[in-house]
Every structure is written in structure tokens, then in C-alpha cells.
């Protein structure tokens, strides 16, 4: 049976549409009109130039984390610990911001480097734990929670603002520590430049470098990879550290542009969101930025939705979650056909 070549490519739109439908039902159940709600999200994301730039500002750290995950997934690693690596990046940048006062370019570069080092360190820890037999999912998860606890400790303790315990964040960093922003938005050109640079770097690493090929071999078959001369210990640690560094950079961008101080929920789940992005993009390089941008639009638009409808802000997460779930389950036409054939054969046999 022949079928047009575009069908498998466009097929995932069907489950996406169903996801939209299900979310609409949920909205109706809570007395909100779906067109109004989606309109509010659209307006919140793209309504005017400032909002568009805000969406881009949200996209940048998400994008950096997703790029990192492309590397770790290529090596076959489930780096759930990315959330913690993101947070550690924010902590690393904050540490430099709170303890040094240098000319802005030097200060910001140092902060970025510290953030990348901290993220890489936290990721490396998960890598070392994996060598000790702790699966990276569990190691990463524990490290995520420890990162949150560390943040709270720093805010409530050593980095408490001098005016006293607000428990919500440190004092704002001095002006030279913060990324220069465009107008009244949270958008920073420097951050965008870094994200694009990182994208180029990851494309180069995965498509053209010998390292990318080693990661691919390791991810697909670690035992064969070893016999072909790939060091699993080295490449696992490197892939984790690379991913952690990018996530850490994302954390730095978040703390130095979106916020101006280290806050209690500095990440707000961006690391987990990045995992969803990469799963939805099916680990494909060119899709990742687009999917990440879509997620950023939905989540940054949800703020307006919340203001208008008083509904809980997790609606954006639900929309993206249902979308990822349905596309993951039903987005692959070949596996659907195989299932259908199997099911019919099973009925015939019994």
C-alpha cells in the first residue's frame, strides 16, 4: 500500500489538535471560554512588541537547557537532573554577582563561567553517581531537590538581604552584574546571542564532530561502543557536563535578566519543561528551537490568561503536557499501524 510522503510528517498534527480539544473541554468545565482563553494566551505571547520580547526572554533559558539535553540524550542518558543543574547555574552566577564588583563585561563573563561550571559540576555528580550504580533518573532527581534546598538555605541564611528575612530572595544584584535589557522587557540581546551561539555549537557537535559520533554509538549500544574504542566513563561524564554547563548558562540568564536576584523558585520547572520540549521534538536538532519557542509562547502567554480568568497558572503546563503525551503516544504513524495490524491479527487468531 502506498501512501503520500507528507502523511507521516503531518500526522502528529492530529494528536496535537486532540490535545487542544481536551484542554478546551477542561476550560469549559471551569467556566472559561476556550476561544477567549487561547486568545488571551496568544495576546500574552505576541500581543505587542514587549510581550513578544518577553516570550523570547522566556525562550532563551528553555532553549539552552533543551540544547544541553540533545547532547545527553544522544549519549543515551536521561538527564532528569537538568532542573538542578539549571538552579546550580543560577546559584553560581549569584555567588559571583554577590561577591565581586568588576567592570560589567568582565563581571558578566565571570558570572556566566561560574554558572556553567556549577551546572557542569552538578551534572558531573549525577554522572559519578551513575558509575556507582545509581541510575541518572534517581541521582538527578535527588540532586534537583537538594539544589532547591540549597537555594532556600542560601536565601534564608548566608545570602539573606541586610534589611532582613523576606525568605523570598536575595537583595538585587548591582547594576554591573545584570544583563543589559531592552526597554521595559526582560529581553537581553547578549542572552539571545549566547543561545544562538550554543545552537550552532550543538549542531556542529552532533552533526559533524567525532565526539558526536562517539556519543551516538554510546547512546545506541554502550557495549559495542566500548569494543569500537569509545570510553563510556569519559563520554558519559563529558556529555553530562556539557549538558549541565548549558543548563547552568540558562540558569544564569534567568537570574541575571528575568530576575535580578536569586529567588526561591528560580527555575520554576524550566528544566523539566526542557525535557518535554526535547521529547516532543523527538530529539531532532532543528525542531527543538521551534518546539521550545512554542512552549515559551504558551507559558508566557498563560500569565495574561491567569490575569483575565483567575484560573490557576498551571493551565499552560497542562496544555503542553497533554500535547506531549498524545504526540508521544499517537504521533508515530508506523507504530500505530503496527499496533493496528497486531490487534487485528490477535482478534483473528482467537
Amino acid at each position: 500500500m502506498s501512501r503520500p510522503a507528507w502523511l507521516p510528517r503531518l500526522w502528529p498534527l492530529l494528536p496535537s489538535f486532540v490535545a487542544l480539544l481536551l484542554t478546551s473541554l477542561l476550560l469549559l468545565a471551569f467556566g472559561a471560554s476556550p476561544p477567549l482563553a487561547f486568545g488571551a494566551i496568544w495576546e500574552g505571547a505576541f500581543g505587542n512588541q514587549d510581550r513578544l520580547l518577553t516570550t523570547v526572554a522566556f525562550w532563551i533559558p528553555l532553549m539552552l537547557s533543551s540544547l544541553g539535553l540533545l547532547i545527553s540524550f544522544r549519549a543515551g542518558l536521561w538527564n532528569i537532573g537538568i532542573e538542578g543543574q539549571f538552579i546550580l547555574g543560577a546559584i553560581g552566577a549569584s555567588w559571583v554577582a554577590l561577591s565581586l564588583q568588576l567592570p560589567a563585561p568582565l563581571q558578566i563573563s565571570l558570572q556566566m563561567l561560574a554558572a556553567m561550571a556549577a551546572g557542569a559540576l552538578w551534572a558531573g555528580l549525577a554522572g559519578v553517581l551513575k558509575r556507582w550504580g545509581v541510575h541518572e533518573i534517581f541521582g538527578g532527581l535527588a540532586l534537583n531537590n537538594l539544589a532547591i534546598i540549597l537555594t532556600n538555605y542560601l536565601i534564608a541564611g548566608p545570602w539573606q538581604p541586610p534589611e532582613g528575612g523576606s525568605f523570598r530572595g536575595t537583595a538585587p544584584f548591582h547594576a554591573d552584574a545584570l544583563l543589559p535589557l531592552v526597554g521595559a522587557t526582560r529581553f537581553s540581546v547578549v542572552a539571545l546571542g549566547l543561545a544562538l551561539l550554543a545552537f550552532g555549537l550543538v549542531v556542529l557537535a552532533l552533526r559533524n564532530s567525532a565526539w558526536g559520533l562517539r556519543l551516538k554509538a554510546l547512546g545506541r549500544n554502550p557495549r559495542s561502543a566500548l569494543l569500537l574504542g569509545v570510553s563510556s566513563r569519559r563520554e558519559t561524564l563529558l556529555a553530562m557536563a556539557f549538558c549541565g554547563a548549558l543548563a547552568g548558562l540558562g540558569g544564569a540568564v534567568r537570574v541575571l535578566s528575568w530576575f535580578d536576584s536569586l529567588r526561591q523558585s528560580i527555575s520554576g520547572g524550566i528544566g523539566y519543561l526542557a525535557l518535554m520540549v526535547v521529547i516532543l521534538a523527538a530529539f531532532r536538532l532543528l525542531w527543538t528551537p521551534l518546539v521550545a519557542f512554542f512552549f515559551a509562547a504558551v507559558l508566557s502567554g498563560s500569565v495574561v490568561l491567569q490575569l483575565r480568568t483567575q484560573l490557576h497558572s498551571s493551565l499552560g503546563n497542562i496544555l503542553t503536557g497533554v500535547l506531549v503525551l498524545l504526540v508521544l503516544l499517537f504521533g508515530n504513524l508506523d507504530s500505530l499501524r503496527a499496533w493496528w495490524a497486531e490487534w487485528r491479527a490477535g482478534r483473528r487468531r482467537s
Partner: protein
Amino acid sequence: MDANWIAIAASVLLQSSPLIIAVCGETLSERAGVVNLSLDGSLLLSALAGFVAAYFSSSLLLGFLAAAGVGALMALIVAFGSLALRQSQVAVGFVLTLLGDSLSAFLGQNFTRLPGPWVQRLPIPLLKDIPVLGPIFFNQDLVVYFSLVLVAVTTWWIFHTRPGLELRSAGERPEAAFARGVAVRRLRYWYAVLGGALVGIAGAAYSLDVKIGWAEGHTRGLGWIALAIVIFGGWSPLRGALGVLLFVATRSVISVVLQRSLGESSVVILNALPWLLMLGVLVVVGGRFSEQVLSRLPAALQRPFRGLLRAAPPAALGAELKEG
């Protein structure tokens, strides 16, 4: 024994009961070869479902049933995604975890901190008067009794019955199980769904008994702890339950000690403790470290101690199913 310590022991048992139920459920599912990684989201969503159903119907039974239904549905999605559609169990489970978390936050927004029904204490006559053991084990509520009976029943079921043999064979070597007439796919569906229902009951046990009521993120993190304890328990309900008790007891004892000595600043340590314990425990059962310790023992002792310390997962855990 100090009355204070008896009270602590009784409370440890109560605090442990939902985790024990969840660990038994997940153990059944993993023994059949299905990793239900959605545990954390399932617990949250079923805790909410249990609370809401009981709140409106004023029936605890309906609350637990609703929660079991939600847990079973989550597990069914994982099983369907992996057994029928051949997707990664880890990916589906992870996505469901996050979705369950956000759904519970959204759906539960109007139920936060409402007073709701809860499970009453049900002392068992005569038995409750046994010194020390009585107040710890027999002056509890139905959830605790259920969790204890569940451990005994699942342990017996897995290791001492014919259906238990079939269950284990499906997780160890599905092609051999198939050759003996075990309907591996159907069996995996059933145990995944049963395990999910138990996880749901565990969720309701939080919102209706151990941590009464609902708030956003009510049980967040506990699902992951349960998943880690299944590994620590070597896929045995009995060992898993002991792991839960050890975990909860350690936390209680340390919190008592810390409150006596340190006061306020001990919150950080207390919060970090579960995760440090989780890492420590997984390192111990994880291989490298325990192998090094084991290799120093005399040869005759190595085997029993290896059995005690280490446990191999079911060989076909999470693997794709090929039939016929």
C-alpha cells in the same frame, strides 16, 4: 519502653502506610516487567481525586475507589503506551508525572485547605492491650491494617503461588513464559493496572488519613521516594516495606533529635535528609560500592550477603515485548 518512643513508633507506622501500599503496587507492576514511572504524578492526582470524591459524597469508600480508579488509569496509559504502541516506558511515565502534577494543581485549585472527612482510628479489642506491641500495631486505623495485610498477601502471592510464578516469569523471560502458556501481554496489563490502583489508594491514604486535606504539591516527591524504595527492596514487598519503615523511622528519629538540640536551623537538614538517604541507599544496593565491600568477605559469606545487599531487577524490566 518510654511512652514517647512508643508514640513515635506508632506514628512511624502510620506515616509509612501509604508509601508501603505504593511500594507494593509498583513492585507488582515491575515484577511483571512494567516500570510505572508516573508514580509521583499518580500519587498527587489520586490524592486529590480521593479527597474530592470523599468531600462531595461524604463517603470514604468512594474516595478510595475514585483514587484507585485514577491510579489505575495512569498505569493503563503507561502500559498501553509501551505494550501496544512500543513507546519508551520511561518517557511516557515521565510525561505523565509532570502532567499529573500540573493537573492536580489546576483541578485542585478550589479545594485547597478545605476541611474534609478522614479515616477514623479503629483499635482492635484485646490485641490493643498487649504491652508495647498493642499501642504500636493494633491501635491504628484501617489504612495501616490494610498496608500490613497487603505486604503479607503480595509477598505470598509473588513467591508462593502459581499466579506468582507466572507474574515473575513475565518479568524475567517473557519468551519462556509465553512458551509455557502465560499470556504475557494480558498479564502485564493486569498487574500494571492493579499496581496503579494500589498507588491510587496510597494517594487517598495521604489526603484522607496521613496528611489530611489537599494543597498544591501535597505529596510531591514521595512518588520518587517510593520508586527508589522498590529498588532498595529488591523487588520484594516485604523488603520494600522494611525499607519504607527504615526511611520514615530515620527521618522521625533525626527530626526528634534535631528539634531537641538545634531548633530552627535544622529545617535544611531535615528537608535534605530524604534525598540524601535515597542517594545513600541506592549507592549501597547499586553495585560498585557493595561489590568492593563484599569482595573483602570470606567466600562462604559472600553469597548470602550479596543476596541481602544487592538485588537484580527482573531481567526483562522495561524491555519491549516480542510474542510469537
